[in-house]
């Protein structure tokens, strides 16, 4: 046995085991003489204890179980030798501990306490039990046991005092703890744990370090403290000795962390990582430091690599998620998902449900999923987080965290459309915490979504932070904001200020002074955007603003470039940065550059992607593009759909009418170019349709005009339209009449043809009759001749002559009728041509193109007008000549709030930025 102890002391575990095995076997074989029971028990128990230690070190689950069961068997054998012996029971307790069965272990230790060790009392079970209590945070019991042990054995090893000290420390009795530590050190001057404890104690008293208080059970924080304390006196020196050595640097960094200088700590750690890349300890410390600093992480790639190299390290993935959350949400989400997956697999392996996953991780992942727009996933994660937090014994869940979780769950429910449930939960939270501004804000948002602006307004006042009134934010308020130092707010304020400038630039720049004013505003805006971009080059809101200003200043190509980049950036963010404005603005630029197909496509995509196909405003833009691209039926259809969504929008109704009017004009031109044969029966139908469209247009214009001042449309313009449509309608009616006549004449001609046919038949019949008559005459003549009466012959000859004249007359009559029909048809065709020119040959100068007689010119004139009109809001150069007049009437009439188009697009970023801010305040459990 003694030899065995030596072997153990010298670290030769293998030999130790072998020797013990041999001792055990030998004892068994030795049958004569009084058996040395205690020795045998000691050997067995030592072997068993060794197995427990091996099991504790063993990673493989199966192997561990085998080792532990072997150990149990050995203990049972020892117990068999002497039922009163303490040692086997102690080891059994250790086995139970290794199996993580605290209750069983406690029972074993308590049983052992009542036994004796080789007939003598022993404090070993006391200590074991005390340890157990300590680990279960049952410090009072632990302390009692330690004291008991000390009392019964004053000469016990210093560890007992250490235990007492630790208990005192844990119980907050720092004075006693200090005394105990000091006493321990007196007995054993080089006892590291005592030193450590003392250091911790000192630190605890002197600086009241938050991290330690907050999370005293986190082994990492303890480790950190240990590192720090160990090097407290040395790291500075060590660093001076060898500035390249990473370990002292890490110590230094940790000290900085302790001193609440995260910025310095981060920079030291970064330099450490340059010397020793991928050093996991440093990375982990850094990962925890970063959230406290404002700087951007330079080592994110290293983190990613480290995580990729250790795909099983849950903590690292979580850390990576935390780190990326603010920089690269898509990446963070992936990291969190990975961590959850790992945890879930582990939980499954342990045979517990996924509710055992840490609520913090679930919550953070849920928040990110919500931001990515995956409401369903977010909801299920959030529910799990709540379950997990509600589970007794889950770590790190205090009342505050519960509140945050509750808020987030309500937020997710709101996003899922369960507004009622969300509202109830927000109100519940507000009842508990009347100062919870976010809840108020969300309630206001719900009320606003419901359209209840009154309630929303009240709530907004309540929170003193209204989202809706963002556009009205006074410059003074913004100035005040700018004075504040917080960088995030500063950025926001700058952005809002820039938007305000861009917004307040007068859209009508025909006058010189307003043009100047606009220029000043735009240059201010650009400068502010530029400054924001300097700070945060990825700020797509600012970039979008730059694009808007560029477009307003007429630099379309550059604007297009910017918008394209913004669009790309938002697409690359996996749905985290939604920027429909960039799409709309890009489409606006396409429209201004007359790239209609691209513009139309862009509007359509934006509508589908961002607006559920239900934004009347974007549909209005789309219709404008279609109108300019000469896709009039499509434009009409788009406008109809928009009107269906927003029936009270007078602008839409006006545009529908304008489009119908244009439809008729276009149709008229096309019909003339086709030169259909006169009397085409479909022509009449077309005319009827055109007239009907005109009637509708007229009705719409009349209606809008009758509304008076309520519609924000130009009354003069409306009156012009009414006059024009009325005149056109009059002409069209006349024309319709003519077309009807035309059709009638065609019918008449058909009738005439029929008559002719009839006449021919008649003449045929007549001829037949005549022939018959002739025959008769001849027969009679023959008879007469036979009679030889000359006088009768002369009379008959006379009669025959009359017949001939009659025949001639019939033939002549036919000819005139045919000719007359032909003439009429030709006249109708000419009339039709002239009349279909009603649009172009209109006397009113406003509608008079250059050359009313030249048809192709009308078409070209129209084209020029449309081309010129596409850009007015941006170039603002009055198109010259008649085309300009036309533009005035048809194109800028296409009312889409030209000035508002871009300003409107420029405004949402502010709103969105605010929204972003709101989202950001979706607290994550820290």
């Amino acid at each position, binding site marked *: 046995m003694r030899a065995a102890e030596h072997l153990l002391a010298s670290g030769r575990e293998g030999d130790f085991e072998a020797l013990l095995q041999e001792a055990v076997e030998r004892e068994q074989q030795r049958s004569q003489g009084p058996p040395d029971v205690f020795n045998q028990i000691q050997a067995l128990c030592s072997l068993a204890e060794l197995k427990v230690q091996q099991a504790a070190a063993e990673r493989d689950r199966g192997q561990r179980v085998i080792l532990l069961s072997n150990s149990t068997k050995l203990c049972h054998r020892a117990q068999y030798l002497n039922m009163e012996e303490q040692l086997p029971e102690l080891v059994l307790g250790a086995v139970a501990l290794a199996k993580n069965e605290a209750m069983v272990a406690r029972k074993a230790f308590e049983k052992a306490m009542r036994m004796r060790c080789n007939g003598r009392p022993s404090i070993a079970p006391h200590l074991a039990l005390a340890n157990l209590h300590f680990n279960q945070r049952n410090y009072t019991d632990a302390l009692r046991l330690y004291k008991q042990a000390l009392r019964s054995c004053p000469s016990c090893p210093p560890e007992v005092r250490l235990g007492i000290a630790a208990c005192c420390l844990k119980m907050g009795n720092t004075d006693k703890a200090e005394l105990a530590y000091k006493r321990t050190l007196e007995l054993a001057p080089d006892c590291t744990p005592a030193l450590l404890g003392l250091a911790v104690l000192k630190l605890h008293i002197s600086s009241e370090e938050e991290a330690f208080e907050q999370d005293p059970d986190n082994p990492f924080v303890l480790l950190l403290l240990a590192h720090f304390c160990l090097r407290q006196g040395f790291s500075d020196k060590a660093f001076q000795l060898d500035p390249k050595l990473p370990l002292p640097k890490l110590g230094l960094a940790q000290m900085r962390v302790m001193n609440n200088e995260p910025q310095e700590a981060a920079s030291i750690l970064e330099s450490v990582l340059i010397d020793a890349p991928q050093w996991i300890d440093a990375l982990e410390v850094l990962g925890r430091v970063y959230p406290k600093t404002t700087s951007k992480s330079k080592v994110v790639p290293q983190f990613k690599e480290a995580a990729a190299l250790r795909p099983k390290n849950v903590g690292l993935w979580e850390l990576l998620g935390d780190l990326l959350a603010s920089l690269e949400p898509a990446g963070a989400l992936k990291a969190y998902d990975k961590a959850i997956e790992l945890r879930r697999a582990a939980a499954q392996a342990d045979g517990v449900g996924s509710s055992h996953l840490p609520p913090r991780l679930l919550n953070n992942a849920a928040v990110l999923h919500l931001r990515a727009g995956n409401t369903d996933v977010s909801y299920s994660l959030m529910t799990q987080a709540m379950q997990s937090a509600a589970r007794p014994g889950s770590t790190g869940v205090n009342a505050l965290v519960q509140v945050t979780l509750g808020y987030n769950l309500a937020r997710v429910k709101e996003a899922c459309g369960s*507004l009622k449930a969300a509202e109830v939960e927000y109100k519940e939270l507000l009842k508990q915490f009347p100062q919870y501004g976010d809840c108020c804000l969300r309630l206001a948002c719900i009320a606003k979504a419901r*359209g209840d602006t*009154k309630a929303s307004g009240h709530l907004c006042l309540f929170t003193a932070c209204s989202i809706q009134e963002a556009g009205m934010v006074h410059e003074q308020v913004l100035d005040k904001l700018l004075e504040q130092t917080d960088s995030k707010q500063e950025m926001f304020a700058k952005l809002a200020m820039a938007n305000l400038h861009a917004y307040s630039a007068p859209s009508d720049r025909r006058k010189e002074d307003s043009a100047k004013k606009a220029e000043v505003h735009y240059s201010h805006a650009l400068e502010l955007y530029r400054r924001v971009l300097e700070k945060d080059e990825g700020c797509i809101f600012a970039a979008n603003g730059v694009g808007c200003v560029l477009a307003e200043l007429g630099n379309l190509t550059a604007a297009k470039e910017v918008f394209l980049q913004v669009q790309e950036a938002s697409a690359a963010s996996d749905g985290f940065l939604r920027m429909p404005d960039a799409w709309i603005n890009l489409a606006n630029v396409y429209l201004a550059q007359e790239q209609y197909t691209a513009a139309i496509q862009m509007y359509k995509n934006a509508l589908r992607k961002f607006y*559920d196909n*239900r934004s009347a405003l974007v549909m209005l833009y789309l219709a404008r593009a279609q109108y300019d691209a000469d896709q009039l039926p499509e434009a009409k259809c788009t406008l*109809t759909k928009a009107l269906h969504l927003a029936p009270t929008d007078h602008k839409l109704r006006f545009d*529908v009418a304008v489009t119908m009017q244009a439809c008729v004009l276009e149709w008229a031109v096309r019909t003339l170019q086709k030169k259909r044969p006169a009397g085409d029966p479909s022509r009449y139908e077309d005319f009827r349709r055109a007239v009907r469209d005109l009637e*509708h247009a007229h009705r719409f214009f*009349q209606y809008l005009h009758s509304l008076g001042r309520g519609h924000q449309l130009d009354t003069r313009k409306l009156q012009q339209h009414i006059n024009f449509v009325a005149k056109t309608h009059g002409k069209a009616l006349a024309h319709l009449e003519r077309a009807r006549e035309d059709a009638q004449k065609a019918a008449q001609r058909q009738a005439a043809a029929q008559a002719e046919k009839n006449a021919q038949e008649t003449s045929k019949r007549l001829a037949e009759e005549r022939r018959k008559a002739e025959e008769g005459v001849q027969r009679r003549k023959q008879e007469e001749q036979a009679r030889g009466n000359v006088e009768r012959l002369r009379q008959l000859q006379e009669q025959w002559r009359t017949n001939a004249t009659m025949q001639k007359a019939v033939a002549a009559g036919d000819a005139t009728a045919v000719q007359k029909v032909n003439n009429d048809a030709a006249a109708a065709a000419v009339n039709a041509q002239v009349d279909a020119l009603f649009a172009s040959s209109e006397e009113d100068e406003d509608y008079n193109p250059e050359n009313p007689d030249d048809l192709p010119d009308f078409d070209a004139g129209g084209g020029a007008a449309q081309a010129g009109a596409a850009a007015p809001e941006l170039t603002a150069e009055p198109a010259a000549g008649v085309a300009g007049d036309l533009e005035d009437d048809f194109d800028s009439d296409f009312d889409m709030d030209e000035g508002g188009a871009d300003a409107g697009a420029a405004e949402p970023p502010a709103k969105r930025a605010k929204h972003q801010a709101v989202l950001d305040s979706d607290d994550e459990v820290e």
Partner: protein
Amino acid sequence: MRLSLLQKQESAHDDSVWAAAWAPTGNTLVTGSVDESVKLWQEVGDTLEQQHHLVGLSLGVLGVSVDSSGQYGAASSLDSYVTVWRMDDYNTVHQFTNIPPSETWGLAFAPSSEKLLLAVAGGSSNSVRVLDVAAKEQAAQLAMPESADKQRKEKFVLSVAYSPDGRRIAAGAMDGTVALFDAATGKLLHTLGGHFRPVRDLAFTPDSKQVITACDDMNAHLYDAEHAELIEAFSGHESWVLSVSPHPNGTAFATGSSDSKVKLWDLQTRTCAQTCSEHTDQVWAVRFRPDGSRLVSASDDRSVCLFDFAS
């Protein structure tokens, strides 16, 4: 209760389908579209077959309805005309053309009464018109309540419904006002509060005692029609609720929404029983067949879906 898809009629119209209505008997379905036409369908062996195509309804069809005898169909179009036709020979009975523009929207035939009455949501006239089809004239005009509330600005009546017993008319407006009228006297009985966004569809439950509304605030509300009380708000759609249809046995109702979903709600448990994602664009109309065994949904994606309903 469960809905199962029997048929998805792709390209039922050339463009968005906005309206649908079943004839009281004979499994005839009427659909209206922005393609300026109305189609009549016959359900034969679980599929819809097109029977007739009525064209020339300018600017698109806003609403369709079939009267309780099944003899007449009516459609309102965006040009503010109301067209009534015979269901058997498809000939137009009358076209009301003298209503000013923007003063028609949804419409509903009165349940069996002496006269053939048609209620039309009056759009910007802020009223409900009751048209006498046989006399070809307006029988009554019911004015919506004046609201002192400043946030209710958009006076535009979008939807109208008759109670099955014929005693009540309900109407919903752009500003969320829902009004309840006595059908016989035209007297305003109640205003049902709670909505502030456009109420694009509404319907009475089969017992005529409750009203269900579909609103842009993403909710469907259930009101007690006699006491003007909000009983329940059903939330779950992720966008505007555009259409609502109660099941004839009174245990469920269906909604269609801008989120492209059709949802089935259990009126007993007051929860969502099922969500159908057959459509790819806004669902403008859902309608249970009067015998309760079928549901039809019409969408912007040009399709019409036919569902079997099992309780």
